[in-house]
């Protein structure tokens, strides 16, 4: 039968679950082990399968962070029940969606697996000083392109809560090689995981060249944002060429402009940014 499209089912179950009181049926699809609500005995082996299928894409295969933050110590610092709750309900305002369909038992299994990882692997830590990092952030020109708490430029991604979304290794890599291993978004069934901040170079039929970050695309059109923050809506049949530039970025590398210690400080500052958008 059709493949698992868990997130779609999630949304449905979540939506309809709240409406069930009004006599709409609840779709009991893919809700984990039946009868698991009482006396849950967490199984880290089962959690491994669930983690690798649902979580590792963002949090890394060892939960040490990827596009999403390092969560190896999350059970230890937040408690198993809270982490299970986050797994099932998500974190509003972040890419962390709720995995309602995993069920209480599945969430407990995942938490058990993360706890196991956290106890056997040394979690990634930040070495730098976030206060120094903030000064480096300002003196390196970052605010010209990035916005934090309503202040800054509009070219690059907003960083207000970047520390809640990205791990230190990931952030470090972005500063060294901004165009490589760009983050991906979307996790709905087989649809999604589109590359963010992907740079394109378009040449129109009349010879105009447009280079910019993809903001939206379908089979017929693409919208690019150039280095000045201007949007260019382009109709594909009117383009002579349209090429991805997967290793390029509008952001410069700081590999040769910041020392190792400065880089650590800057990463520490970015990791500390976990605030909500004002």
């Amino acid at each position: 039968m059709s493949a698992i499209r868990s997130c779609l089912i999630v949304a449905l179950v979540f939506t309809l679950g709240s409406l069930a009181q009004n006599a709409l049926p609840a779709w009991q699809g893919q809700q984990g082990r039946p009868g698991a609500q009482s006396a849950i005995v967490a199984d880290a082996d089962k959690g491994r399968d669930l983690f690798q299928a649902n979580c590792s894409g963002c949090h890394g295969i060892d939960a040490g962070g990827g596009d999403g933050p390092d969560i190896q110590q999350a059970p230890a610092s937040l408690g198993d029940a809270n982490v299970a709750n986050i797994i099932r309900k998500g974190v509003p305002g972040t890419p962390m969606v709720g995995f309602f369909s995993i069920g209480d038992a599945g969430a407990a299994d995942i938490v058990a697996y993360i706890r196991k990882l956290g106890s056997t692997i040394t979690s990634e830590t930040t070495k730098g000083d976030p206060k120094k990092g903030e000064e480096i952030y300002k003196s390196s020109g970052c605010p010209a392109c990035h916005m934090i708490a309503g202040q800054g430029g509009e070219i690059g991604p907003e960083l207000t809560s970047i520390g809640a979304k990205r791990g230190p290794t990931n952030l470090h890599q972005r500063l060294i090689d901004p165009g490589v291993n760009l983050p991906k978004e979307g996790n709905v069934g087989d649809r999604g995981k589109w590359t963010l901040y992907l740079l394109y170079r378009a040449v129109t039929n009349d010879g105009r060249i447009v280079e910019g970050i993809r903001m939206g695309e379908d089979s017929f059109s693409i919208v690019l944002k150039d280095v000045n923050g201007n949007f260019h809506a382009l109709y594909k049949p009117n383009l002579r060429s349209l090429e991805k530039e997967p290793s390029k970025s509008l952001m410069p590398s700081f590999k040769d402009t910041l020392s190792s210690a400065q880089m650590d400080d800057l990463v520490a500052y970015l990791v500390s940014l976990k605030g909500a958008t004002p």
Partner: protein
Amino acid sequence: MKATKFFLLLLLFCLCGPSGSSAQDAPYMRLLHSDSEPQNWFMYGGDYQSKRFSFLKQITPQNVANLRPAWIYQRSRPGEMIEDSPVVVDGIMYIVEPPSTVTALDARTGLAIWSWTPALPRVVKVDGYHATSRGVAVLDDMVYVGTIDCHLVALDRITGAVRWSVTLGDNKINYGLTAAPMAIDGKIIIGPSGSEDGVRGFIDAYDAKTGKRLWRLYTVPNPGEPGSETWGGGQILGGAAWNKGSYDPELNLIYWGTGNPAPDYNGDGRPGDDLYTCSLLAINPDTGKVKWYFQYTPHDTHDWDGTQVPVLFNATLDGKPRKLLSVANRNGFYYVLDRVTGEFVTGVPFVKETYAKGLDAKARPIVLPNTDPGLEPVLVYPSNNGGVDWVSPAYNPLSKTFFVNAREMGAYFAKSKLPDKPLVVGTGMVMGGRGNSYLSGDDSYGAIRALDVTTGKRKWEFKMQAPSWVAPLATASNLLFSADDEGDFFALDSNTGKVLWHFRTGGSFISSDTRSSPITYEVDGKQYVEAADGDTFIAFALP
């Protein structure tokens, strides 16, 4: 609705409708000769050959750029994604709003005439499938729908009143109906979903007038029955026949695909070919007996159900006229079979294929090493949603071209340990692993592909941003309609693949939960093209 208003509407419908109620019936002979009434879209695939092709020619490559919405119907209740392919008879359109609400619309205006919603249990089990329906069947004065809790219901075409209702299987163990039923002479035929919980697949035929069951064909054997030897002594599970088939009235055969065995991704407990899963069955509709079978994917471990709707066509091969059928299968191969005997004629990949390097003389996939799901994931093309999933193809008999909405996507497949004890059917999903670690987004794309129907050789393709879940629709005026995954409904020149028109519907065809199958019809001399998107059913027409 108040009774007075209802009767006024009914009166208006009878007076202003295309004709009186008796003329609006859809007897078998009209369905049989559907090509002679191109103004109607009588059944799920358009006709018994499942061509998704119309002889209507008002909308042409020259004027299609002028298409614009004629009406929009917003679905009346929240729910799962729309997968409906409407049926239109004499100006009345019958749609299914998820999960199982049947609504009759005035096909000229989109105005609802009646609507029927089943009383569903508070909890409905839908493990591994969506709480939706792909449409209705019509026959004589009735409309037939399968409900998500596994009832087949006959409704009065004029009032929407229930004429009869039967239960096919127990939803508590995951039986549910998502397929559009097939209506042939005096019979309604349908099969349920549910393989992901290990239910035993079957196809049923019912007396169209009374709802009396005429036969049941199980798609997998009981232990000891013929075919059980292909399960290696393991538990025999799955094979749900959850999509619609096609029908050849001259040969008196229906052609019906079957789904995957269970567990989906771990075949260790069912060594062998696992008949008759992932197969096409040629069935005598009078007896329910299988005349021949053809298995696409022996011992499936990639969730590649064989439930794609086959297209029936005739062609001359080596100087001899042949009755053939073709299927673009989820395993990535395009097949041509002799529909009289089941003989394999041709099989070629129509998408990137890393599972098998080809098909042998008996059509068995020549499986490549390291493609079976391991404890560590293995990357295989196509993904578990296949080269195409359940979405139907279209066929233009004039140009002998087969159109498929191809999915160019791979996925990492992994198996997990099987439980020590035999599965208790209906106690939860038994995937035995996973295949949903997709190479999606920028690592994938979709394409409408035009294939020579007898050889599978590609004539052209139209690339799309992402694999789409929208069926193509072909017309005699050389148009091909479909939609991409980002919400653009479009028309191509069916001879070249050139884009002639597109319209952004405002929602993605999938992210807004729609996997529609466009249709076309004509009322009062005006041709319409209908597509569902998001929460809406939209009919387009020329000004």
